[in-house]
């Protein structure tokens, strides 16, 4: 019997696909150059030439939103990869070895959990120059404990299974068990967690850019567009609307996608995954 596709999955999938298509399109085509300054056309409302209007420097808002989607996706992908790359092995080690190694890795992830991403980003920005890279590193590291915990939790369950003992009887060591048995069994939880983390990362990057700790100008970033539009809120209110809506819909899309995937992949999982930001 085929299970019914959860509606959250459809809506989430649609929104995420929209962002991806926009981002990909912006790589080859935007209505105008998103960094092209046209001083004579500052703070215009929507016109046929500028469908979403222009910003305080006369740059085309639509082009900047499109290019911003690319930036947003890049940051989401890289941060989630960092978080998975560090968090999954940590959680795996904790589940496989137990004992002191488990304590060490879990306390380490507790320490990371105690640092808000913003604080980490401020630290990185102070040490290096604030850039997309420092923002991605800060958010990625802040998300590590989420993955470490999820993998450890699901991994501990897997380690109790008979087939893990059986694997040991025919000579499978810890590394083998991790790759062949633990990872495939936690992959569904991992996929769901990754989409949720994606949303968290996008929101965090927007916040960092808003504070000037993220993507530096002139690369368009939704968070910074939002913060810059503040000054002109009474002259061009729509300027704040577009990036705000973009962020909201993208985050909503990834959250819905995560919810839908969870319903699809693991109907037994009742408790909600911890979303944090």
């Amino acid at each position: 019997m085929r299970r019914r596709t959860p509606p959250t999955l459809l809506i989430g999938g649609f929104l995420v696909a929209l962002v991806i298509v926009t981002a990909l399109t912006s790589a080859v085509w935007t209505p105008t150059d998103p960094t092209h300054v046209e001083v004579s056309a500052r703070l215009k409302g929507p016109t046929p030439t500028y469908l979403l209007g222009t910003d305080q420097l006369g740059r085309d808002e639509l082009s900047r939103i499109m290019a911003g989607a690319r930036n947003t996706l890049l940051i989401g992908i890289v941060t989630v990869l960092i978080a998975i790359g560090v968090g999954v092995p940590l959680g795996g080690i904790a589940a496989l070895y137990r004992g002191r190694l488990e304590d060490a890795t879990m306390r380490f992830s507790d320490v990371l959990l105690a640092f808000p991403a913003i604080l980490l980003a401020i630290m990185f920005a102070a040490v290096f120059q604030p850039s997309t890279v420092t923002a991605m590193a800060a958010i990625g590291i802040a998300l590590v404990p989420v993955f470490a915990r999820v993998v450890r939790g699901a991994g501990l369950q897997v380690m109790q299974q008979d087939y893990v003992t059986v694997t040991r009887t025919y000579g499978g060591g810890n590394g083998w068990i991790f790759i062949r048995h633990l990872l495939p069994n936690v992959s569904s939880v991992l996929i769901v967690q990754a989409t949720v983390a994606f949303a968290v990362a996008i929101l965090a990057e927007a916040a960092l850019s808003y504070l000037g700790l993220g993507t530096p100008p002139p690369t368009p970033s939704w968070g910074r567009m939002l913060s810059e539009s503040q000054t002109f809120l009474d002259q061009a209110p729509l300027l704040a609307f577009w990036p705000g809506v973009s962020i909201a819909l993208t985050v909503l899309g990834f959250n819905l996608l995560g919810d839908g995937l969870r319903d699809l992949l693991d109907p037994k999982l009742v408790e909600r995954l911890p979303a944090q930001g």
Partner: protein
Amino acid sequence: MTQPVLDVQDLTVRVGSIEVVHQVNFALEAGQRTGLIGESGSGKTLTALAIMGLLPDGLSASGRVLHRGRDVLAMSERELCAVRGDQMAMIFQEPMTALNPVMKIGQQVAEPLRLHRRMGGRQAHAAAVRALERVRLPDAAEKMHAYPHQLSGGQRQRAMIAMATACSPDLLIADEPTTALDVTVQAQILDLLVGLVEEGGSSLLLITHDLPVVANVCQRVLVLYGGRIVEEGSVQDVFGDPRHPYTRALLDAIPPLDEDLPDRKLKAVAGSVPGLGEFPPGCPFRNRCPRADGACVVMPELDGTDHRAACWHPLT
């Protein structure tokens, strides 16, 4: 005399400070099929896990377990991984949970081959098909792509046996391999095991509480009670002429088929197996034994040459 495949010397297993297996000694000759019998809680499975070096956390083993002259208990994890599956393998009771539900049968059967024979994907696949054919799994090539839930219990146990024997280990431990299966399938699986063991010249240690199974399959038998071997010998000697009262009681507990049943009660071994660490000092069976007296406060040695029993008042 050639070196035994497995020589267990003074094997003691402890849970914390409580001894659950006490100074067990036995040896398995090459090609020999030995039964290890006893009630639940007698330490059968722990003995097997100790031989494989697979005792769970919190349990420790001392003594020596010599496999081809090498002490398993002294091996590093890496050495153990190299030996397990290649030279010794184990089959478990529950074929329902012993296979990874998200992996295809073929991939799982190929795992030991990939680990020990360094086979690549295609080669391992072909070898796995042969292994499944050897355990007479119908439509082996097709079943390679099936998931465990698509197989019956007997088929899964065949797949497990295929995995365990894929690298032709010289020691095969089967821990109640047929307990979870229905009787007709049991007989097939036992035939298969005996066939494979004879073909490969391996030794079999069959752990069970099912005495007729041992009588059909094995040549030698070890009777374990309270973590001690109380009687050992050839199947004919031990079952035909038991010397330890516990063995006698076990044999009496088998319901005979040729009697009129209506008003006959099943015989059970009097009392029940004490909990961990609650066995009486001295002979562990003395609180359930009809022949026990003051002498039984001291644990008797295994007495005899080929057919040995640890009892102050043997039946014969």
